[in-house]
């Protein structure tokens, strides 16, 4: 295990996910492992997964952000207001730029709110628990003030694909193309890393291990594409699609797959960018060093306050992206959007191996953690567990997962 540099915790998570999926599939008489359910599962995971990426960095620096759910609610309301009330007046109803301006405003607003909280934490030395607990109350209140509690609907039609649904499925051909590009990138990454290590004369992984990693990675990507493509569009929608291209709808009908969903691709892109940021850029190195020993980072010349402020700013940007996803998914902006999301996001990061003591955590782990959480929840809905019991199960799983992780960690050291 050691020489091939597999992370045993990651393998454990994938195994846990497998157990959960097979378990629910058995309990639901095969309804869990269907293209339809898995497609929806991924779409539902997207918003939490995006925010979990940022939460990893926050927790790695020994901080916490309790405000993300409320911030999502506030940003979502502002975005709803802008695209349903403000932009139609300024640019006209269903203007082609509306969706883009909405995303921009959402991301910028989230970033500014995050930077503001981060500055309070880093420069005024107020504990992040308190600042973001305050934020949890303030942003939720602010979300109500935007429209005095009114829900805003519907959203712009070009904005709605961000939330998934039929309009947010990119189709089978594009899905294969994206899948193949990702596979090519995985292979190129492996080859480049190997070449670098050889150039410096470091030890290389055995070829079979490289092959296994490549096969696993590409298999997961192409498997996901296959599942997404196997979920057929409703016949009416498929027919309209065909006819819109000027083709004739065949007698016996035709099945057209959904393909990957926009929010899932968005979450994937965020995951890749954030992984790159944490592993390959100086910023990520500083984040981890601060988590390991804040004093040492500072004595080494790292501007720890600036880095900390940026971490919270980044968290805010990701909240902005998630606000777009969930507003588009609901096709409405409500002031209660994102309620309790902070807990799911923190749970996803922690289940994914982020240590609350700081200094340890991975983006991939947190995204898998989000998928585990969502699988539990969706699975319970599918087999008809009522809401109070769902909460009890999720709570117990969180505690048990962190306990097991602690046992594992102690055994290592």
């Amino acid at each position, binding site marked *: 295990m050691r020489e091939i540099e597999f992370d045993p915790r990651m393998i454990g998570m994938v195994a846990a996910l497998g157990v959960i999926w097979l378990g629910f599939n058995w309990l639901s008489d095969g309804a869990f492992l269907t293209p339809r359910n898995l497609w929806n599962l991924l779409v539902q995971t997207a918003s939490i997964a995006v925010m979990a990426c940022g939460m990893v960095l926050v927790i790695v620096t020994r901080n916490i952000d309790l405000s993300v759910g409320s911030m999502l609610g506030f940003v979502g309301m502002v975005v709803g207001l802008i695209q349903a009330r403000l932009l139609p007046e300024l640019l006209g109803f269903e203007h082609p730029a509306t969706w883009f301006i909405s995303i921009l405003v959402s991301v910028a607003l989230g970033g500014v709110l995050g930077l503001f909280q981060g500055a309070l934490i880093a420069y005024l030395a107020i504990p992040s628990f308190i600042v973001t607990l305050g934020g949890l109350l303030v942003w939720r209140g602010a979300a109500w003030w935007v429209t005095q509690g009114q829900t805003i609907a519907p959203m712009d039609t070009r904005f709605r694909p961000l939330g998934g649904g039929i309009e947010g499925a990119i189709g089978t051909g594009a899905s294969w193309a994206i899948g193949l590009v990702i596979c090519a990138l995985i292979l190129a990454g492996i080859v480049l890393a190997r070449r*670098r*290590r050889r*150039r*410096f004369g*470091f030890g290389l992984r055995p070829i079979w291990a490289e092959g296994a990693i490549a096969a696993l990675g590409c298999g997961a990507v192409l498997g996901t594409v296959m599942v997404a493509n196997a979920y057929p569009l409703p016949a009416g929608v498929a027919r309209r699609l065909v006819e819109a291209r000027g083709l004739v709808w065949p007698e016996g009908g035709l099945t057209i797959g959904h393909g990957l969903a926009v929010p899932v691709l968005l979450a994937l892109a965020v995951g890749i960018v954030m992984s790159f940021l944490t*592993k*390959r*850029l*100086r910023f990520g*190195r*500083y984040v*981890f*060093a*601060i*988590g*390991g*020993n804040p*004093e*040492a*980072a*500072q*004595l*080494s*010349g*790292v501007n720890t306050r600036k880095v900390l402020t940026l971490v919270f700013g980044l968290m805010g940007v990701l909240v902005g992206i998630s606000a777009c996803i969930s507003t588009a998914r609901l096709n409405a902006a409500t002031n209660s959007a994102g309620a309790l999301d902070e807990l799911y996001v923190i749970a996803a990061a922690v289940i994914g191996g982020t240590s609350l003591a700081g*200094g*340890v955590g991975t983006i991939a782990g947190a995204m898998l953690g989000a998928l585990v959480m969502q699988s539990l929840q969706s699975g319970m809905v599918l087999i008809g567990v009522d809401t109070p019991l769902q909460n009890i199960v999720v709570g117990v799983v969180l505690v048990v997962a962190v306990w097991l992780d602690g046992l594992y960690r102690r055994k290592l*050291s």
Partner: protein
Amino acid sequence: MSLATARDIEPPPLVEMRDISIAFGGIKAVDTVSVDLKAGEVVGLLGHNGAGKSTLIKILSGAYRADAGEIRISGEPAVIANPRDAKRYGIETIYQTLALADNVDAAANIFLGRELLTPWHTLDDSAMESETRKVMGRLNPHFRRFKEPVKALSGGQRQSVAIARAIYFNARVLIMDEPTAALGPAETKQVADLILELKRQGIGIFLISHDLHDVFDLADRVSVMKNGRVVGTARTSDVTQDEVLAMIISGKCPAGATPGPGALRGQA
């Protein structure tokens, strides 16, 4: 007048700390301390626990800002507001606490804040690991655990990493706060040889140690501190170890030393 002629012959010292004071909540940890260091010189800083040695050198390394006093580097007044400023003046420090980020590997620690980058501004981990192997080879040839977080290393190995970080960047001034406290005899010898080699290269070294023998072997001069003040400064050739021990314990300044503000007065 004689001062002016002396200046003409001798270049100004590499480091001059003049009348430095700092207090923590009313406790004067360092009280009007003056020390200096020439290029190619090793100055031992001695004193009992809590005398203020670490605090003094942390002012030079940019970890603390002095409440009063002046620092001059090569005769020019220097502003050292943070560790980055100190490094810009070529001042590298091995802290008593080592100041390592436990969760990342040796290379990440050595290059923390000064990472090697690829042309695309990404971390060049392979280059950093390769450099780390070179510099660690000088200090601790048996070191192999390059990939592991520093947390997993022994006390001596951790200390070697901290020393490697200080010597890698071509320091002009090296501050070593108890650099061999966790090292075995072989590694301690290696560090002693290293100090002599760096000295030959013209680097000035502040060496803090509780081991009088070591200090007498390596240092050209010693400054003794007690309760935040300098008892006295002496060339190691002008005083005996017993006299220095007396300076540390009772604050009595012998004839061979220049007394400082902390010297015991009114006694023979």
